[in-house]
């Protein structure tokens, strides 16, 4: 419980006391596990048209997020080292995990709305479900940028750290697109994202 309140403070940009490396590792892993749990809630809501889809979404959505993060992370860490950024690797990983937590928190808060509209509106259901994902992605990216900018503020070569953040976000989105296609169907209706890169950029 203490960990979760500290996690919220860190995510909101507050000054939580993270004293040692062990403490930071605990917070990072708590952020990731909490994020996966929250995304699972959104998965249940988005797939609530059928019990099978909802249950499969409960593990598919967290897995898509985890795998996208795992795919993007090595490139971000390599970029950080090659650009001789002042930001330590563990702080980049920690900021990345807390920003994923922030994004999935948005997803989970919008999940009831997604579920209600999906069952009651044929026009707004799908746009709302997709819109909630875009809002969550934007929130997570902003939180990530803010967390890293705060940690490297006033240091030389801070642009290198922000470049690593940008690269990590772009690679995360690129991987997400393909993992969503691999895990489809996640939403009950057909979307351009079901076919991955090829169907999104088909023209």
């Amino acid at each position, binding site marked *: 419980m203490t960990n979760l309140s500290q996690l919220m403070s860190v995510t909101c940009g507050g000054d939580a006391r993270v004293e040692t490396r062990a403490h930071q*590792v605990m917070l990072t*892993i708590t952020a990731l596990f909490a994020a996966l749990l929250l995304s699972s809630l959104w998965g249940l809501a988005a797939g609530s048209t059928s019990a099978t889809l909802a249950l499969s979404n409960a593990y598919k959505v967290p897995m898509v997020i985890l795998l996208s993060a795992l795919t993007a992370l090595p490139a971000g860490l390599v970029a950080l080292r090659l650009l001789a950024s002042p930001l330590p690797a563990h702080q980049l990983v920690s900021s990345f995990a807390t920003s994923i937590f922030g994004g999935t928190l948005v997803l989970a808060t919008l999940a009831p709305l997604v579920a209600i509209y999906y069952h009651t509106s044929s026009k707004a259901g799908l746009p709302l479900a997709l819109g909630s994902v875009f809002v969550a992605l934007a929130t997570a990216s902003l939180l990530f940028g803010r967390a890293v900018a705060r940690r490297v503020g006033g240091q030389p070569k801070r642009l290198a750290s922000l470049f690593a953040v940008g690269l990590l976000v772009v690679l995360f989105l690129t991987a997400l697109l393909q993992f969503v296609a691999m895990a489809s169907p996640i939403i009950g209706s057909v979307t351009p994202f079901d076919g991955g890169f090829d169907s999104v950029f088909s023209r």
Partner: protein
Amino acid sequence: MNPTLWLVATSIGTVVLVALGVIYRRAAAQRELEIAEEVIEDDYRALDQRRVNSNK
């Protein structure tokens, strides 16, 4: 798309989750030790302070 690829990817994801669980438990044990050390150090410091005060 490709169910085999999805199966492989989720297996990797599951292994990573298990590994993270193990790392978390180790970090939690390490943190417990650190907290215990801090408490012991504080106790010693308080004891020393009491001795200094009684010698005065």
